């Protein structure tokens, strides 16, 4: 050990004194300086900058590092270093020393960049932000670099010629970094942006993330052991005699790590299959008919929240001979394990099922899905994780998830803390907590557990998961501020104090004395102002759906405005006047908060000036606007702007509140909107433009 440490010191000195290696440090710094994270170091949150920088660096820098590392690794394997190979400890510690120097050397060479990063963070955000930011950078960078360096060592030993080894590694690392899998699969050694979830500590990413990291760690160790094995025959010296005990231990260790890796690989494979399933549309379609036929639908669920294992039993009263077998939209993980459908007696059916609830990726991935999937909204409707449970009424944790149960009973063991539980009867029995809902029940039933920490933010305090991914607190604060701004606009009074919970799938739950909103995750926004406007659109539409998890809002579909369907299955975008109303409301609130009236007026004028007579030009003009709307939507939007600027000050807010009272969470048509306008102002919507001019 002493020899290894001393040898490591000496080799490290050699690595660091080699000026060529510092070219990597320069390249690393340049990559960081060219990335957005550096330019946003002042405006974005520290953890956002740290995460962004780390992800960008992990996708772009290893391909350079392998070149420097291979050059260093193979330096002494040429024939002019025979005097070193004739020394016993040089060969004995060669692989491990080189590997360790590769890792420590990387940390050293990346230190100027990290110094710039943490200095910037400390300067703009305070010294307290240094450690969390640095932790994120090192976690993301080191896990990937460990794999790359070990892989490089193995390749170097096998090929033992710098140029071919570099070429092979550039190809392999290049492939691994440029592929974009749907989820963290077996080849996601450098996961990059795939796991840039809002929630790392908890949430649906956790299970595949942990399985992926464990598998990759196993592969890394296998590479290391293979490297040690090949080093015996590939390094330029006679291998030492193997001691029986060392051979046995090596063999056992190798078998154990191979076993572990295979196990994690199978697990990852299983999770992968469950994560990548697509919704069962056929079953959901059939449920539309089945639900109407049910006399009674009751669900009893037991949750062992330590390992997400779920056992459920459903009792259904329905006409005899009903075929339920093709109409179950149960989570794939639960079907996978056991599912037993029985007709106990005429007209009474039971379904028993159990398994591990793995949330499919279509429920949370930040990528575009076909419209039919997006429209399903919170189809999976549940999250079971380590000490975390979240349940939505119509989720695929019970077989006929589209049907509203008459009764739901949930039994949870080892429950830590309940953050939200809607009007349930709660009883405790045998170290388990039982929740019972009967009759009409809200969409969101329950939120509990999770390793949360409390953070004070403007207008509220937030409960966010520990180890949550960067930017979460910043986003949470914006959500809270936007809810406060909406409430202030609607009531004219300062907003109530709020509690904000960061939840899996739903993103944010915001609760105060007068409202309780579940807000889906915001879409991407280029800067803070855009982000506020985007979040306001989320907030306004969540307010519209208050108490309901409107499917059309589930994935923030209003962000790009390409469609809008709320509550009614047959609603079509062209018919609804809701989108322009909510969009105008969000823009107006954003404008009032930012006092950037010129931009607001300009946006209204740009919508007004779109030449609907020429569809091509209109489509081109729409490209530069923040929100896509059809011609009718734009007319309504402009009409609302005229109402707002030419009519009485309270007209718009009265209209909005009245619309919500009458139609929420559903939609309404242009005629219905006009009727509301008439009621509020005594005039039709299209009269206001002319009035104003006069």
């Amino acid at each position: 050990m002493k020899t290894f440490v001393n040898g490591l010191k000496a080799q490290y000195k050699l690595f660091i004194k080699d000026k060529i290696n510092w070219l990597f440090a320069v390249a690393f710094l340049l990559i960081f300086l060219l990335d957005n994270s550096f330019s946003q170091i002042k405006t974005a949150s520290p953890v956002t900058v740290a995460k962004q920088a780390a992800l960008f660096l992990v996708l772009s820098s290893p391909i350079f590092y392998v070149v420097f590392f291979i050059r260093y690794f193979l330096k002494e394997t040429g024939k002019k270093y025979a005097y070193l190979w004739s020394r016993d400890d040089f060969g004995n510690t060669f692989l491990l020393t080189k590997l360790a120097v590769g890792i420590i050397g990387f940390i050293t060479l990346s230190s100027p960049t990290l110094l710039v990063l943490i200095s910037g963070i400390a300067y703009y955000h305070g010294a307290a932000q240094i450690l969390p930011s640095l932790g994120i950078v090192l976690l993301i960078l080191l896990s990937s670099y460990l794999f790359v360096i070990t892989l490089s060592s193995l390749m170097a030993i096998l090929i033992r010629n710098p140029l071919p080894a570099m070429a092979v590694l550039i190809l392999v690392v290049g492939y691994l970094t440029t592929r974009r899998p749907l989820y963290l699969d077996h080849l996601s050694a450098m996961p990059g942006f795939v796991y840039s979830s809002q929630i790392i500590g908890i949430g649906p990413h956790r299970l595949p993330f942990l399985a992926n990291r464990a598998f990759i760690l196993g592969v890394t160790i296998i590479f290391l052991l293979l490297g040690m094995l090949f080093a015996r025959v590939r390094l330029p010296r006679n291998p030492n005699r193997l001691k029986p005990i060392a051979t046995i231990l090596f063999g056992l260790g190798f078998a154990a790590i191979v076993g572990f890796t295979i196990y994690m690989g199978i697990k990852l494979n299983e999770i992968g299959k469950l994560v990548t399933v697509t919704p069962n549309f056929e079953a959901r379609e059939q449920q539309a008919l089945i639900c109407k036929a049910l006399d009674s639908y009751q669900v009893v669920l037991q949750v062992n929240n330590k390992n997400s294992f779920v056992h459920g039993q459903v009792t259904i009263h329905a006409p005899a001979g009903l075929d339920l077998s093709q109409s179950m939209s149960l989570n794939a993980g639960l079907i996978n394990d056991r599912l037993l459908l029985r007709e106990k007696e005429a007209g009474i059916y039971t379904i028993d099922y159990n398994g591990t609830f793995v949330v499919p990726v279509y429920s949370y991935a930040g990528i575009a899905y076909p419209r039919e999937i997006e429209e399903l909204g919170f189809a999976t409707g549940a999250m079971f994780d380590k000490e975390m449970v979240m349940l939505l009424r119509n989720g695929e944790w019970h077989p006929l998830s589209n049907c509203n149960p008459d009764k739901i009973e949930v039994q949870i063991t080892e429950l830590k803390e309940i953050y939200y539980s809607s009007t349930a009867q709660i009883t405790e029995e045998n170290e388990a907590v039982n929740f019972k809902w009967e009759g009409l029940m809200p969409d969101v039933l329950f939120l509990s557990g999770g390793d949360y920490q409390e953070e004070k933010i403007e207008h509220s305090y937030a409960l966010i998961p520990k180890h949550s991914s960067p930017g979460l607190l910043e986003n949470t604060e914006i959500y809270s501020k936007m809810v406060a701004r909406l409430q202030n606009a609607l009531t004219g009074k300062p907003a109530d104090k709020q509690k904000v919970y960061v939840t899996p799938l739903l993103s944010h739950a915001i609760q105060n004395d007068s409202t309780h909103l579940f807000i889906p995750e915001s879409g991407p926004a280029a800067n803070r102002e855009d982000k506020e406007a985007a979040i306001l659109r989320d907030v306004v539409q969540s307010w519209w759906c208050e108490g309901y998890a409107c499917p059309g809002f589930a994935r923030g579909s209003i962000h790009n405005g390409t469609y809008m369907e709320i509550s009614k299955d047959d609603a079509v975008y062209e018919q609804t006047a809701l989108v322009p109303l909510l969009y105008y409301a969000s823009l107006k609130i954003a404008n009032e908060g930012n006092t950037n009236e010129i931009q607001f007026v300009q946006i209204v004028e740009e919508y007004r000036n779109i030449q609907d007579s020429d569809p091509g030009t209109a489509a081109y003009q729409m490209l530069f606007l923040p929100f896509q709307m059809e011609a009718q939507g734009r007319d309504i939007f402009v009409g609302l702007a005229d109402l707002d600027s030419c009519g009485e000050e309270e007209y718009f807010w009265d209209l909005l509140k009245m619309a919500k009272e009458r139609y929420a969470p559903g939609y309404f048509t242009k005629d219905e909107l006009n009727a509301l306008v008439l009621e509020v102002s005594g005039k039709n919507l299209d009269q206001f433009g002319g009035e104003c001019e006069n």
Partner: protein
Amino acid sequence: MIIETNMLTKNYGKKTALREVSFTMGRGVFGLLGPNGAGKSTLMKILSCLLKPTSGTARVDKHDTVKDPSEVRKLIGVIPQEYNLYNRLNPTEFLEYMLLLSGKDPDKKRIDEMLERVNLSSVKKQKIGSFSGGMKQRLVVAQALVHDPKVILADEPTAGLDPEERVRFRNLFSEIGLEKTVLLSTHITEDITSSTRNLFVLNHGSLVFSGQVQDFVRNAEGKIWTSVVKNQDWEVFKRENLIISFMILPESNDIEVRFVPGKRNPPEGSHAIIPTLEDAYMLMIHQENRKEE
């Protein structure tokens, strides 16, 4: 015996680099002579545990170089024919590292002694990259000695050195030979005559001589002649005799030559001389090559 080889053979594909070489060595300096490609470096690599023989065995202090290389490595110090040093280190740092790799603590006193011995004390804090070829060569000798090995394997250690350095090296090897076993592989015969009486000669992978230098030289007695040859007869003379060395006499433009006579008797005016090691070596190599043909 410190070093012992038995029927040592090394093949590179179809080419045989060493053929059934057997010898033993005790303490002292042993010269290993042979032309390029004779198998000297292959033998040195096998003894240094860098290469496995195809067949046969090599042992250092009874430890087999294949079965027990770890023990052998503890006993040897290697002075390679070609080497790269760590140019960014200074000699002290370099020798510290070499001690570490031999499983020993960095002993400052020992390092200073070594640097003193190879006359590098004055530059011990200077980067190795700034050293001349001779200085580097001395440092290579120091690294081979610093961990106090029983055996020194020196492959062409004086190649490229100036005469003064070479003399210093020969003396150093003689001194080392008093307490250690030194195998001095070279094709410079003077290195051997001035530092040892023990000699091995390799040619085409075979050990063609093993014994005392004087015995080797005695083989050539009466076979080495000198003569002065007319310039116009030189081409014919060269074809008919084995030339060991020659020089043009400036006053007459004739050529004074040391040679081994061919099939004909030596020309008139020639006379036999006392052979040197180089003469004997040239003769033996010539004879061996003719046998091969």
